Structure formats: C-alpha cells, structure tokens
C-alpha cells in the first residue's frame, strides 16, 4: 500500500517537472541568457520570481530551461546506452560461445574502470571552447556511449535464458537468421528489461552531468543545466544570504529520489 502511494506521488512529481521542462516558454517570457545589468543579485520579486544571478540573469528562467536540458537529454543518453546494451547483450546471449565471452570480458573491463576518469578523458579530447549546444550533445553522447556496461550484463543473462526457450527453437527451425532472431524474437521479448535498464540509467546520467558541469567539464554557459546552475553553490556567502538559489539542487534531489522510488516500487510489488 505504502509502495503504491510512493509510486503515485513520484509519478505526479515527475509529470509536473517534465511538464515544466517541456513547456518552458509557457512559464517564463525571458530568454535564459538575457542580462538585466542594472539588477545583479536581485532578491525574488514579482518580476524575477527567484531573483537574478551575479550577471543579472533571471534565475527562474534559468532553472526552467536548465530543467529542460538536464531532464530531456538524460533520457536521450539513457536511450543510447540501452540501445547499445540491448544489441550487444542480446547478440551475446543469443550466440553464446566465444562471442559471448569476448563481449562479457570487454563489459567487465569497462565496468571496472572509473567512469568519471574516462568521461573527463573523452571530454578533454574536445576543445573546451566548443559552443554550448555542442557541449550538451558531447556530454550526453559521451554518457550514453560509456554508460551501457551494467545494463548489458542484465540483458545478456535474460537473452541467454531466452536462447533455450521453445519458441526460439521453433524460430530457428523455421529458418530465422541471427539478425531476425535478435530483432524479431529477443529484443521484443526483453522489452520490460530494457525499460527497467533505461529507467535506472536516467538518474545516473542526471547526477553525472551535474557533477561534470559543476567541475566546468559539462554543459557550457550561457546554456543552463542543473549542473552548471549548481556551480553557484561554491559561493557559500551568497548561498546563505540567498537560500532560494538552492532550488536547482532541491529539484535535482527530488527528481532522482522519485526515479528511485518508482524503481523500488516496481521491484517490490505491494
């Protein structure tokens, strides 16, 4: 019962936050980079709901657009990671033998590497003065390309179980090729697993982007994201004087907890 309540509340909060991200233009009429140079560090008012930052940019607008960047691109990266995991994992489980051992060995190797070191090494490969839009794409594509190994193990195990099932034997006997088996039998049958892995990856990518951007290696200014909005937290004096600037952190924590609660309630049905 409690699980169901938690799940309901989490879905509602996520729906609100996603609506906030999708219809950003409906909530604010300022562009996210517009500077009100006469009003730096302004307190909340009816004109600027959360005040302005040290460059005079409307903080509410930046939070709304930052939510869009973080919340819409993390699922895109999760989709890429899940797609890689499903194709490689499905193929490994389906074929078995040396192919499976090689793919699993490579996956184990990637899993034992510190993801953050790999991320910053790949990010540093690109020039630091790339356009903000390119920085967003680079950040999330890198996350998607490096974030699949743990999902692959799960997909591979499920695909291996499927390999021995009767309908797969029947499909093989009918003359299905490996590609047909993968795309017509394995992938459609493992859809719930892909969905769970996709769901697990989203909060992970949101958190990683936040840390990368806080270190100046993620989404570039003036484009806002939850991560680069949190860079302001380094100024403890300004934070304690203007606690509403912690709203991006609050939003991030609540969103990640909602994802966790939904996952948890799916794992343990009431």
């Amino acid at each position, binding site marked *: 019962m409690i699980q169901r309540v938690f799940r309901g509340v989490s879905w509602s909060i996520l729906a609100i936050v996603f609506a906030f991200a999708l219809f950003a233009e409906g909530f604010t009429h300022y562009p996210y980079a517009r500077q009100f140079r006469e009003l730096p560090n302004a307190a909340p008012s009816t004109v600027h709901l959360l005040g302005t930052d040290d460059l005079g940019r409307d903080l509410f607008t930046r939070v709304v657009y930052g939510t869009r960047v973080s919340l819409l691109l993390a699922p895109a990266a999760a989709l890429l990671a899940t797609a890689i995991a499903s194709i490689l994992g499905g193929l490994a489980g389906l074929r078995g033998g040396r192919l499976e051992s090689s793919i699993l060995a490579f996956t184990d190797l990637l899993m034992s590497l510190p993801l*953050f*070191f790999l991320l910053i090494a790949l990010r*540093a*490969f690109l020039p*630091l003065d790339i356009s903000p839009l390119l920085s967003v794409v680079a950040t999330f594509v890198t996350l998607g390309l490096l974030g699949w190994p743990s999902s692959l193990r799960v997909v591979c195990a499920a695909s291996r179980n499927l390999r021995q099932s009767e309908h797969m034997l029947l499909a093989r006997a009918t003359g299905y090729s490996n590609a047909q088996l993968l795309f017509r039998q394995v992938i459609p049958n493992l859809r719930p697993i892909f969905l769970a892995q996709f769901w697990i990856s989203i909060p992970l990518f949101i*958190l990683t982007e*936040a840390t990368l951007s*806080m270190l100046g*290696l993620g989404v570039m200014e003036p484009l806002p994201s939850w991560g680069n909005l*949190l860079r302001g937290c380094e100024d403890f004096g300004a934070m304690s004087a203007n606690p509403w600037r912690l709203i991006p952190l609050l939003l991030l924590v609540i969103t990640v907890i909602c994802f966790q609660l939904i996952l948890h309630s799916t794992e343990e049905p009431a």
Partner: protein
Amino acid sequence: MFTWVVKLGRKFAVLGALALLGALLCATMIRFAPGYGVDERELDSRLSQESRDAIRSEYGTAETLPHYYRRYVSGLLRGDLGASVFLQRPVVQLIRERSPLTARTVGFGLLAAWIGSSILGLLAIRFPNAMLNYSAMALTGFLIALPAAVIALLFVFWRAPVFLGIALVTFPKLYRYQHNLLAQAHSQPFVFAARTRGVSENRILFRHVIPLVWAPVLALTGVSASMAFGAAIPLEALSDSPGMGQLAWQAALNRDLPLLTSITLCVTLLTVAVNFLADAIGQRKSS
C-alpha cells in the same frame, strides 16, 4: 592449488595485455587530439623559420604513426610517461608526488564505507524492523540522489576530511548491494530449517548466511575501488586537496592529454588489478 595458480597467471597476463592496449589507446588519443603538435611559441614573430621547425620537431609531428607508437611504448617501458603540457614537468614525477595522498584518501574512504555499510547491513538483517529498514533506505536514497560535487562542497563548508566524502559517496551503493544479498540469503529455506531446530539468530547469521554471501560481496571490492577513484575527482578538485583527482581535473581543464591519459591509465590498471585479485581470492575460496 596448481589450477588456481594457472588461473592467476592467466589473469595477470590479461592485465599485461590490457596495459599494452591501454597505452596504445592513450597514445592514439594524444596523437589525434585536435591541436596536437601546436605550440603557442610558434606565434612569436621574432622566431625564424628554423626555430619554428625545431619546435615542431620536438612534438614529432612529422614522424610516421608506427614510429610514434614505438617511441611512446618504449618510453612507457622505461618509466617515461612524457611531460605535462601545462605544468611543464615529467608526468611520472607528478604522479609520484600526488598518488600517496589519493591512495590514503581512497583507502580510508573505502574502509569507512565498507565498515559502515557492513554494520548497517548486518543490523538491518539481524534486527528486522520496519523503522530501521525505512530509515536506512531513506538515508541511502538521499545520499545516492546527491551529486558527488555537492557532497564535496558540503565537506568544504564543514571542513571535514576528504576521505569521509569518498566514504559518503560509496557507502549507500555498498549498503544496498550488501543488504540485498544478505536479505536473499536470509530468506532461503535452510534458514527456516535452522530456526525450527532452535539454532540462535546470531549463529544463523554468522555461520550460515555470511559464508554464503561473502564471495559476491568480495567481488564488489574492485567496483567499490573504481567508484571511490571516480569520486576522488570532484572531492579533491573542489576541496583543493592536491591528489591525483585534482591533477586529473586540472589536466582536463587545460586539455593536457599526456597527463590526463597517463593518470587514467594508472588508475585503470590499479582498479583492474584490484578486481582481478578480488576475483582470484573469491575463486580460491569457493574452490
């Protein structure tokens, strides 16, 4: 015993092959990175063409690819990881200076995280109580939802030691994994059988449940080391702690690829070695 030694030897051969592969990958990244071989000294209009050619030859941009790889790998074998572009110092020297601090921070952080998660996990299984279970879930859920960089900032604000930050980042994931394993083992039919025969709860936990889960828990050592090294970057960078994490961050910000790839290679080999060792010990015990 002999089979185990052979397996261990095979694992270390794989580790050697990985080191070579990693080195070639690092060399490729450095060689093909945008801006390779470009030196701002070339913009100095007072320099003659000969001087500019001499600067270019320092980077070896004219040499062929196989020659470049040979030079890089033979340098590595001699313990020469090249020189840092922005610090203008040998990479080996920088790693030697910074690694003891990171080793201490990561080591103590992991120790604290393992002790904390194991005690809490055992308590949650030994004294099954909804309140304790929900509190532990809420605490670990909250900690997982905090980006490592935010934890780093909190630690700067509280002036707390960096190793505790690493412990705080690793602890929730370790706790959840250990708790799940213990809960699964604790719900096995042999536990009910032991209970009906009057075996005490402590004896069931320490003599029957823990021996069943300790091998998969041990396998987590490598992954936890990898998590801790990953957390060291934001924690050291934002806490101004002069370790390898801070060095990697500075290298990334300055696009110092020789330094960054060398640090990544060292940390990777270390975590893979820890993983292999944990795996080998687990296999030895289970065989």
